């Protein structure tokens, strides 16, 4: 795709907005429609578009396999440890109320962090799936 000037320019223009929109859906998830799942997919779509136009290798320079794998596990760990935090602070697992002195704020903070974990894992998984198929060679 290296010769298509229009595609290259448009992609370069679009990618930051796609990533920004992904972050908007992520962080707006606790007020309106959205959340970690959708945001993760949108965020990953930005990288997939970039990889399709500029080549998988250049996309993988930014996000090598190791980082993606750490992202997959790291997101789950964020989720699990926020849940454990509630447990350590004396409430049931995944009860976010004790995360702040005001119960409602605690709930807000908890769901915010949990969705961050979800978003990280979903984005990493989507990109890993894409990169795995894109770099797959017949043996």
């Amino acid at each position, binding site marked *: 795709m290296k010769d298509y000037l229009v595609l290259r320019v448009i992609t370069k223009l679009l990618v930051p907005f796609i990533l920004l929109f992904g972050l908007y859906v992520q962080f707006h998830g606790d007020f309106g429609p959205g959340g970690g799942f959708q945001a993760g997919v949108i965020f990953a779509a930005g990288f997939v578009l970039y990889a399709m136009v500029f080549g998988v290798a250049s996309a993988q320079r930014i996000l090598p396999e190791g980082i993606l794998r750490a992202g997959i596990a790291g997101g789950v760990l964020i989720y*699990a*440890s926020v849940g454990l935090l509630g447990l350590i602070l*004396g409430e049931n*697992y995944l009860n976010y109320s004790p995360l702040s002195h005001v119960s409602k704020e605690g709930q807000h903070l908890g769901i915010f962090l949990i969705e961050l974990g979800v978003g990280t894992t979903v984005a990493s998984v989507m990109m890993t799936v894409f990169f795995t198929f894109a770099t797959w060679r017949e043996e």
Partner: protein
Amino acid sequence: MLKAHLPALVIIIPMTCAALCVLLRRKDWAFTVALLATWASFAGSCLLLVRVINEGVISYEMGGWPPPFGIELRVDALNVYLLIIVSGIGSVVAPYARNSLLLEYVEDRAYLFYSAYLLCLCGLMGVSITGDAFNLFVFLEISSLSSYVLIALGFDRRALTAAYQYLVMGTIGATFIVIAIGLLYQATGSLNMVDISKRLPEAGYDNTTVIAAFAFLVVGAGLKIALFPLHQWLPNAYTHAPSTVSAFLAATATKVSVYILLRFVFTVFGVRFSFEILPTATPFLILAILAMFLPSIVACFQKNVKRVLAYSSVAQIGYMILGLGLVSVAGLTASIVHLFNHALMKGALFLVLGCIFYRIGSCHIDRMAGIARQMPWTMAAFVGGGLSLIGIPLTAGFISKWYLILAVLEKGWWYLAVLIVTSSLIAIIYLWRVIEAAYFREPPDDLKEVSEAPLNLLVPAWILVLANFYFGIDTSISVGVAEIAAKALMGAG
């Protein structure tokens, strides 16, 4: 403080540690984490058992949301029984995984194996403990997806097709279960299992939605159980999976699926709907009897010993379903005890085969000829596990069959008792073929000198073999808890 959170901890610890394994990456660290996680989970399950016996049913509200709105973890005698089976087998198999991996896997990706193993454990524990029908499906998918990965890690390429076959069948099964849950939700407006069972009479037992849900559930669970005509995926999956995985899955995965069937048929739908309004007892009995015989006969003609044991597993599931089909406290007790005892005997036998595979690189019956002279301890363990599988007195297998025969006689169906004994005789045939080859035949000419299997493989195998004998003599725990569970299941209807 931690004691109150035990129901959550037994599933969170393996889940968190699975993610941790991926981050650590180093093989030894991942192994240590996996080992500690399974042991912690087992310790937690044992503490839960004590609490359930002393205090009765434990309910845990996830996130502090009360049921039926939030997800409830609900631990009664049957739940904790399954937790003990899964985490107990998991703890014995985990140290075994370390050495048997060397031959069978790419070493630099071993941490991913431990991660998948812990996820599978977490999923099976989750199914056994949750009180929420949809949550049950989610955990079932966690365990299924990770078990497809584990099976595909097998030694040769046939493992991939076996895993794919299991994936297709398992996905159909899981989809049927989720359809059933959806229909139940439509009919009752609730996802909490206890709540559904209370609301079902209001929805009406002649409601076609409910009847369709029942049908979907039984077929879906039947696929996951490998109930006789739906068992095609099981022999390939267990044969081509790595030995460690065969042992773990054979001992736990089908048991948890039987639990799903028991829980839904008896607790959610209730005895009255499942057996009085719908005529399901007879089909269960017929399928159970077919399962006891046909796969056993097929097992007699197999050359690969792993495949012999896999077919034998399908046959053993017949005994569990037979107990279910009797619809009595005695029958259910026999079923539930057999969940435990069969986990012990199949776990032991598959671990022994792992020892043999480690040394001679094959589980083919001809390659195993004369092996007992070179690996006496390993083959002695095989004989021990085999005795239990046949059901010789003083072994766990005898206890299962004893209670099953008692339950059958209680109904006055003596011909079923004859069938149970006859099918046990077939087990003697297929196990004797292996023992005859290993003890009395000359080793093949090209077989090089092999030594006894390393201790970290042999010790877990022997622990399970000795457990077979222990629970064949002292049945106060295994039968005692099963009886409480059976009474609770029958009483719920």
